[in-house]
């Protein structure tokens, strides 16, 4: 089986990339192929990267409060590209009240501040399926 391919993306205008970079390294050290898109990615750019990179997982780092706009748009675009089987996870500051809505649209994992990196690695290993 090939390694899991993970796109780590930082959508929106926010530039605080500490979390995105730390988790990207942790996933890489855990044996995954990690593609970090860099900053200020639109949902279109992220869906495009997922397709082009043949991603099994898309991880979004969002701290700014824009998740309610970005996540639904990304899910639509992934669906339109036939990428429904890509595991989408979000890390960042997400108010509790928003979590059910995000889960409903298909975001599988939501990781709040203080989550150990190992928990995220385990979650991805359990829920992602490497494409063949």
């Amino acid at each position: 089986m090939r390694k899991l391919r993970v796109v780590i993306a930082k959508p929106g205008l926010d530039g605080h990339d500490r979390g995105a970079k730390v988790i990207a390294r942790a996933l890489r050290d855990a044996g995954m192929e990690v593609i970090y898109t860099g900053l200020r990615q639109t949902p279109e750019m992220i869906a495009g990267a997922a397709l082009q990179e043949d991603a099994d997982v898309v991880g979004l780092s969002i701290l700014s409060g824009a998740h309610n706009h970005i996540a639904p748009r990304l899910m639509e675009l992934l669906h339109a590209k036939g990428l429904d089987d890509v595991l989408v996870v979000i890390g960042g500051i997400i108010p509790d009240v928003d979590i059910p809505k995000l889960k409903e649209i298909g975001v599988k994992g939501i990781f709040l501040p203080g989550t150990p990196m190992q928990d995220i690695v385990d979650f991805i290993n359990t829920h992602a399926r490497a494409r063949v």
Partner: protein
Amino acid sequence: MKTVAETDREPTSRFTTISGRPIERLYTAADVADIQYARDVNDPGVFPYTRGIHATGYRGKLWTMRQFAGFGTPEDTNQRYKTLLRAGGTGLSVAFDLPTLMGRDPDHELSLGEVGKCGVNVTSLADMETLFDGIHLGDITTSMTINSPAAMIFAMYLVVAEKQGADWKKISGTIQNDILKEFIAQKEYIFPPRPSMRIITDIFGFCAREAPKWNTISVSGYHIREAGATALQELAFTLRDGVEYVQWGVDAGLDVDIFVPQMSFFFNAHSDFFEEIAKYRAARAIWARTMRDRFGAKNERAWKLRFHSQTAGVSLTAQQPYNNVVRTALQALSAVLGGTNSLHTNSLDEALALPTAEAATLALRTQQVIAHESGVANVVDPLGGSYFVERLTKDLESGALDYFAQIDRMGGMVEAIERGFPQQEIAESAYRFQQAVERREKVIVGVNDFVQTDEPPIEILYIDDSASDTQLEKLAKLKRSRDNDSVKRSLDSLRAAARTTENLMPRILEAVRAYATVGEMCDALRDVWGEYEEVPRI
């Protein structure tokens, strides 16, 4: 049988600062034998100001209690400012939202979902007038955390002051205006480094003539530290950024004795108590020596490093949020013992959301308790002479100078940034710290130890999209009501000036007066300079 020395042996790896610096069990006179008091430390108010820039410490004047705040519309934030001023806050500090920080109007596609979320949205002069409605800019000092569009936002503030009848020569406050740390850490840049530096030297030159009491820059270690830097890296990169600005100012023909006294600094107040105190002490000494010896400054005000500090947002935990009150109090105490000139204390709920009014008030109260009840403000630099603190101060100083030498060899900070040097150093430290937390070599109470699973949720400030709707409506109305010909003329002249070397501030003031938006003014400059894009590295 074990000897006393053996039973006394400690696992040394555990005894490090939060930055990973090894700490001895005991410090004695032998550890400070190389330190000469008059040369290296000296009394408060005397070169190199290790013990403080004022001989009287906080007896003459307490630090400014300046609480950073902003959210939603200018109307929302204006109300919060009035609450903070009524509660005894002594200065204002504006948090702008991401569209404003990135020079995008609310109707730009990248502003989707971001308007008013992380701070207040200010699109044009009209918003600035609302933000300070009923607040006299001649009577208070205001700090504005704005970087790439600093010149535009500052120009708006100046025009509001003028309309209120306040004298530019007398008003005081600070614009952050520190683009280097944006490239290094916070990443809210717009233009490439070199034209960005030119705007900053234009502001230095303009303020030297027109707004002599204004702090033209707040050279910031805060964000560098939040991004994962160690205390030493924060100290070294921040001060080396300061050196870079001074060098660019000198190269632009400005006089160090005039523009350097208008520069200020901004440090993080992190959790390792003594290391932080040593960091502030070291910062003052390095700056004083560098300004005198490297730049030949003769004005003592150019030697004196003045700084704001803010407790460490990154240390706050979403778990057991009330613990954050204690963390913040300890961090604030270290800033005070280190001689901070102004201070922001974070609110307990900031790992979850922007603070509620109650949480923000409690954060301010924390400072008031330190100032008025603890007694620490009675004496200047109470830790001066401590074997431990003096050793740590000296070590941080020499460590920072080593970084200076390394960056000088690269050709300066702009070149170091272009190579990704400080960025990589910080990313490395951030990852190492996270690994130490995962291995529980560093304990975070409530997160990787003393965990509680049955926590009730706390009430948080939830910012919905109504601010975005309001700002979009106001913008559409503005575009219909203003004189769009004069907007266009002023933007054309700004664009033309960007191609020359003339000072941009008068052109920006003209555009602001015509009610050009932040996005329009930044676009005019984007047309000439383009946008900076970082190569993503992990």
